[in-house]
């Protein structure tokens, strides 16, 4: 039935439209992937091979480049990755736990400043962290927290965007009668939150944990201003140092290996979790 009405419609036939759509989709997919393909190829090639121009076939020097450029290179990339993992991991845990708690407070309870708080959090959602960076840095200096991970992790507790997502999710999955039932059974409020709400929120927590992790992992602006000691630096800072170092001195194979080392783990994890990530972007972001 529907096919018939389509055929009667003016304009391009459905087959041609489909062909154009596939062609464009393949084109933009290539546009997204080609950079990483070239990166992978070049990370496998030696310095000499790289000076001879580009070839689309991988070579055999990947392990060697990783060894000399990343594991025993001039910049501490392995340490940087561990630092990044630690900071991003802690941020993700704190951010999701406390954002859920904040959403729970607004969703379940009635109190005088409830309306004010929920409007306030929505209003400040747009404020970029950069505009308060100056005061933030001074504060960090006064608290003697420079070269410390605390100023990069603890602020994740107050994340308006994650709160907003959690609240949206809660409205559709957490009936107040359930909380009431737990109360009748004698469960304390805090225990109800931890043992009943958190498990119910698992899907939302997983999605937001991934997003918080990735944005903390990729964060460059604030960490670069807070961390100065080599052994405390996170990956983006080391990448920036790679850029500012004298370029001609470097073996380009090592440079590509270092970039690949900081990009490919995220790609692999993404491909494993992509089902949740791609669906998750829309779950709470735009509803209605």
């Amino acid at each position: 039935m529907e096919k018939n009405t389509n055929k009667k419609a003016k304009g391009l036939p459905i087959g041609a439209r489909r062909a154009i759509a596939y062609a464009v989709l393949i084109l933009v997919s290539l546009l997204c992937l080609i950079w990483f393909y070239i990166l992978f190829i070049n990370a496998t090639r030696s310095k000499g091979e790289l000076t001879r121009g580009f070839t689309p076939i991988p070579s055999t020097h990947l392990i060697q480049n990783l060894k000399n450029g990343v594991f025993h290179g001039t910049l501490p990339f392995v340490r940087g990755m561990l630092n990044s993992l630690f900071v991003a991991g802690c941020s993700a845990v704190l951010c999701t736990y406390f954002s859920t708690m904040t959403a729970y407070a607004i969703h379940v309870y009635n109190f005088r400043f409830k309306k004010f708080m929920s409007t306030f959090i929505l209003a400040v959602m747009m404020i970029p962290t950069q505009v308060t960076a100056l005061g933030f840095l001074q504060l960090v200096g006064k608290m003697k927290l420079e070269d410390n991970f605390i100023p990069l992790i603890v602020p994740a507790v107050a994340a308006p965007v994650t709160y907003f997502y959690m609240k949206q999710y809660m409205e559709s999955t957490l009936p107040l009668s359930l909380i009431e039932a737990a109360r009748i059974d004698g469960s304390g409020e805090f225990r109800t939150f931890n043992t009943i709400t958190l498990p119910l929120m698992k899907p939302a927590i997983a999605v937001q944990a991934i997003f918080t992790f990735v944005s903390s992992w990729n964060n460059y602006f604030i960490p670069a201003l807070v961390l100065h000691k080599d052994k405390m630096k996170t990956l983006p800072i080391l990448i920036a140092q790679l850029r500012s170092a004298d370029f001609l001195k470097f073996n380009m194979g090592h440079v590509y290996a270092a970039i690949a080392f900081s990009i490919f783990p995220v790609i692999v994890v993404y491909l494993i979790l992509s089902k949740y990530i791609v669906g998750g972007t829309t779950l709470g972001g735009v509803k209605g």
Partner: protein
Amino acid sequence: MDKAKSKKVVSYNKWGYIFLIPFVVVYCVFQLVPLASTFYNSLFENYRSGLTQVGPNFVGFQNYVKLFTNGDLLIYAKNTMIMWILGFVPQILVSLLLGAWFSDPSLRLKYQRFFKTVIYLPNLIMASAFAMLFFTLFSESGPINSILLNLGIISAPYKFMSHVWSVRGLVALMNFIMWFGNTTILLMAGMMGIDPSLYEAAQVDGATATQIFFQITLPLLRPILLYVMITSLIGGLQMFDVPQILTNGTGDPVRSSMTLIMYLNKHLYSKNYGLGGALSVLLFIITGILSLIVFRINTRTSK
């Protein structure tokens, strides 16, 4: 009965405050206090010139005057806007097209999950590493020049990093690649929310896909387009990682790709807290006003 019940509810409701404590405390300490002290700092002359520390002396709004009169600010604001527009225009066009295709039931595209996964991928890549990658790929002896030479498109390596528009173009290209997948998925979700009976009615009336897109999809999509535009604009004003790493913080050639946040970053590094504070406050206000203006324009035209 009723009174007893409401008393009980009130006693539970104090937990609302308790559960809000972590958020409120952390937000105040790490956001509100810094915001206030940023504003406070903007009223003082406070910088280092060589080894001597100047200030802090109270100067009122002189930092703001200085910011506007030395001319740099307008150049960097212009650079930021140019690079944002260069990236945003193709981004919104491609996203609208892809979103319309993905959500068109009569097109029945296969491998949708694969394509969505691929176009969303660059959004998660570390911007600094991506910029570093582009720097090496587009360097004079890099693979892009090598490919272009082999294909005979150019006869000598093109110096991407020393021309104003090629650097701006690369920044815009990277922003486009990193964000069009995200925008596509947002717009697609909006398109899925449109009542399918509208499409069916239009099809029965003999409308083409193009007509349906412009007459039905686009007008109904306005709120989401507005959302995408505001967030992208605010994101554009924060543009930092990509141009910073691509140009090693210089914004070269001749500071033509220096953005506002790169400028702020410079002040923060040199500990020029007076000017840095004024710039921060200014950015805070611009962010607020811009989102208001865009919001107003869109609601007016829809009425």
